[in-house]
């Protein structure tokens, strides 16, 4: 949804009067049959790439909010900024600048995404694994205190691993097998991923099963009513998350999601490990992939043995609303309307600027 596209043929008189915007944002991109000149995401891994486009996006979103008057609202409303872990200071400062100086909001509550997700799942102790569109992050929290020395992000040299990489992977494999989707290709690959992909408990067994029979193959209908069959792509797509360096390239140095989870568990203090392994909260859309939860439980149980994990019981919590869990958490923080310790007011900002050294948003109360 945080995509922006500028049509190639925008001066065309036929299209011009219908649309106020010269660019199209979010799901509009798929509604109008333009060829887009530029077609790019604005935010990548929580870091804004182009701030001018970001302002256009924010104005567009605020127009869509029901019962929100821009002139009235801007001096009285509080904004909750849900940011990823290890957000660069420059990015933070720019957010403050835009929200206070351009939009003139009343106050700002910065909040870390995984912590908001954990609270929204009703827990104060747990290990949050956030597998999002373009970023995978992990944060252990004990009794509301985030263990910030253990928190981690999965990264490659170029970018971060997430659901977007799976979509690209699907598109590439389909291209190899002779299908080239032109304009709406990304959307079709995304649909294939969401409907048919799954994570196999044992990858090599699945490969053997696929070679022997056509039990795993499914058909998918394209927009022009032709059908294609998809077989090994289904479980390969899920496996990318666990072995990214084999499927996507050698850039992915940190290993898969299971390595990230196990490393974090082993880095955290031994007294907390049982509480963490019993409360692994999944968050983000990719975490809803079928079989993902079971595979994670299996990996942790088989790879961490009793001296390192006092009782080998692993419980992964997957919720229906998991894909928007961190947003929901942020929305609740905003709507409770009560005072927290971490409010940054506009007055304070105008007087002394951003004080980045102030204790920052890792605890709620």
């Amino acid at each position: 949804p945080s995509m922006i596209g500028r049509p190639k043929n925008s001066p065309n008189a036929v299209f011009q009067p219908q649309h106020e915007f010269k660019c199209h944002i979010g799901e509009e991109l798929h509604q109008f049959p333009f060829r887009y000149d530029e077609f790019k995401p604005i935010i990548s891994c929580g870091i804004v790439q182009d701030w001018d486009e970001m302002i256009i996006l924010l104005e567009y979103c605020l127009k869509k909010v029901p019962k929100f008057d821009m002139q009235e609202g801007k001096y009285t409303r509080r904004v909750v900024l849900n940011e990823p872990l290890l957000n660069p200071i420059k990015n933070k400062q720019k957010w403050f600048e835009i929200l206070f100086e351009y939009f003139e909001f009343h106050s700002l509550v910065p909040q870390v995404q995984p912590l908001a997700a954990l609270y929204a799942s009703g827990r104060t102790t747990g290990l949050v694994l956030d597998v999002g569109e373009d970023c995978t992050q992990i944060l252990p929290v004990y009794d509301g205190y985030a263990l910030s020395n253990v928190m981690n992000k999965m990264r490659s040299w170029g970018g971060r691993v997430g659901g977007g990489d799976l979509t690209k992977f699907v598109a590439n494999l389909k291209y190899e097998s002779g299908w080239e989707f032109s304009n709406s290709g990304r959307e079709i690959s995304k649909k294939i991923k969401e409907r048919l992909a799954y994570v196999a408990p044992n990858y090599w067994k699945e490969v053997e099963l696929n070679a022997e029979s056509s039990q795993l193959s499914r058909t998918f209908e394209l927009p022009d009513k032709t059908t294609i069959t998809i077989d090994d792509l289904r479980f390969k797509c899920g496996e990318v998350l666990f072995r990214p360096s084999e499927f996507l390239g050698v850039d992915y140095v940190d290993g898969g999601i299971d390595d990230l989870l196990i490393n974090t568990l082993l880095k955290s203090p031994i007294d907390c490990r049982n509480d963490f392994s019993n409360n692994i909260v999944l968050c983000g859309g990719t975490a809803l992939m079928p079989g993902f939860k079971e595979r994670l439980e299996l990996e942790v149980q088989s790879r961490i043995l009793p001296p390192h994990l006092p009782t080998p019981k692993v419980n992964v919590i997957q919720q229906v609303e998991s894909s928007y869990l961190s947003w929901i958490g942020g929305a609740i923080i905003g709507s409770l309307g009560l005072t927290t310790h971490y409010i940054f007011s506009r007055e304070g900002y105008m007087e002394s600027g951003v004080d980045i050294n102030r204790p920052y948003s890792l605890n709620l109360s």
Partner: protein
Amino acid sequence: MIDETRLQTEQAVTITLIDFCPLQNSFKDSPEDTHFTLLRDKLREIQKAHLFNSKPSMLLMKRQSKIVFQDLKLGKGGYKNLLVLQLDPSLQEPTLTIDHQLSQHTTLEQLIPHLPSNSPRFICYNLHYEMPSYSTSREGERSKIILITWCPKECGVRERFKTALGVQFLLNNLNGLSATVHATSSRALTHQSLVKQVL
């Protein structure tokens, strides 16, 4: 980090108790008594320091419920084994109050079937258990107060979020809770699993 906050909350609880203690009346009766005036000044200092240090919080709790919890700790008052708290839906601001109906049960086994299936509860439970011994002699009985959060899967996200805030609030404000247990179903609340958490 956790130890520091425990110290702070200890101070907070003692101050609230002093607010209600009958000694306060005697301050008013005998203002000339030097011993009491000294004590009163000290208390005011502590109170001021507490006000300065206290963080604004997202929840509220009635002082009465704190006193009842203190009574549970000392083994007196109406509730000796169980104290069930709830987020009162009738009040506008989220406030923790005592659920008197559920608190009347004496053991956890009696309470579990009566717990609501769609709203959260906080249970302060006085857990009595036999200390496991590694020799032939008995180690004896112990008792500890634990905090059980009852948050079934049918709860909405907003309720769940408030539950998490409530746990944080209770840990900061009630002194003497030795463990917290998160329960989504009655299966997690067996005697053995609770004892494991405490040991």
